[in-house]
């Protein structure tokens, strides 16, 4: 009888320990570094248009209102960023918020025909309940030179057209 009770106690311990394992697996230990969670790239896809791309890892999201883009030098003349529609929700603390998951492409018009450095500030969080401080990433942008690059450029530009139509519907 006492053996049966002991077995029961041990079985419960086993269950409790496994619950702890499961909790650990879902918690902050698996967190990615911000540059991996929010993988940034940017390039000039056509004269006067920058495409900024974030590959957002599964289980992470970014806030629309936290993006800031600047050009160095400022005289490069960065225009207003065009965002695709994100997920909008009413937050108990922040009111209306718009977030992105998965792949995010932001378009930035630019006046400069020459090269410049794009500085991008972004902020996001992980679903496990951890937020990253705003991250600043930079990309050196220059117009494409070779014909090969120009072709790549065209293919990318048509992708962008589709995106801009999507974005247009949301406004």
């Amino acid at each position, binding site marked *: 009888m006492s053996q049966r009770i002991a*077995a029961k106690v041990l079985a419960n311990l086993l269950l409790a*320990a496994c619950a702890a394992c499961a909790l650990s697996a879902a918690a902050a230990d698996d967190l990615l570094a911000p540059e991996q969670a929010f993988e940034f790239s940017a390039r000039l896809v056509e004269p006067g248009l920058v495409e900024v791309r974030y590959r957002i890892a599964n289980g992470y999201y970014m806030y629309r209102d936290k993006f800031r883009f600047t050009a160095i030098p400022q005289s490069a003349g960065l225009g207003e960023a065009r965002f695709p529609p994100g997920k909008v929700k009413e937050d108990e603390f922040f009111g209306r918020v718009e977030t992105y998951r998965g792949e995010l492409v932001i378009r930035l018009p630019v006046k400069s025909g020459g090269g410049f450095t794009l500085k991008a500030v972004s902020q996001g969080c*992980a679903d496990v309940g951890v*937020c990253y*401080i705003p991250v600043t990433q930079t990309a050196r942008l220059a117009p494409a030179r070779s014909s090969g690059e120009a072709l790549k450029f065209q293919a990318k530009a048509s992708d962008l057209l589709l995106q801009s139509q999507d974005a247009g519907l949301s406004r």
Partner: protein
Amino acid sequence: MNRTGGIALLALAAGLALAGGLWLYPWSGSAKPDSGSVVPLMAASLPDMEGRLQPLAQWQGKVMVVNFWATWCKPCLEEIPEFVRMQEKLGDQGLQFVGIAVDNAVKVREFSVKYHINYPILIGEIDAIELARAAGNELGGLPFTVILDRKGRLIGTELGGLNEQKLTPRIQPAL
């Protein structure tokens, strides 16, 4: 297999699972007692909401719970009411919460009033995250909490949200 053998096997399995759980647990972002240094934190002075410099070392002698947070960080805002309640309940026993806001003063002041924060809030701006990194928060995530005993020694850290239930057993032995 006889019953004794079965129980022995079960005991071994339970032991291994518990050991595994205990081994994994620190990696959950909880209880990383030796992963960082609190020397930079305890040597730091940061402005309070009125702009007066406050050395962190002034609270040594109490059990300190130093919480890095920001008004733009939702999981940070969720845990603050728990801290307010615990400060109220255990402050007399020597528990001292200190908030370090990785944020600007205007927003922090607004939030502190709204949520009746009853413990000191220091304005760290973005640079304060370096104190958190030194204390073991390599990724610079928020919220991040550092627990120190009365001698200013690191008891544990937590990356991610805390609540009274999770925090109490970790501070109780030091009180």
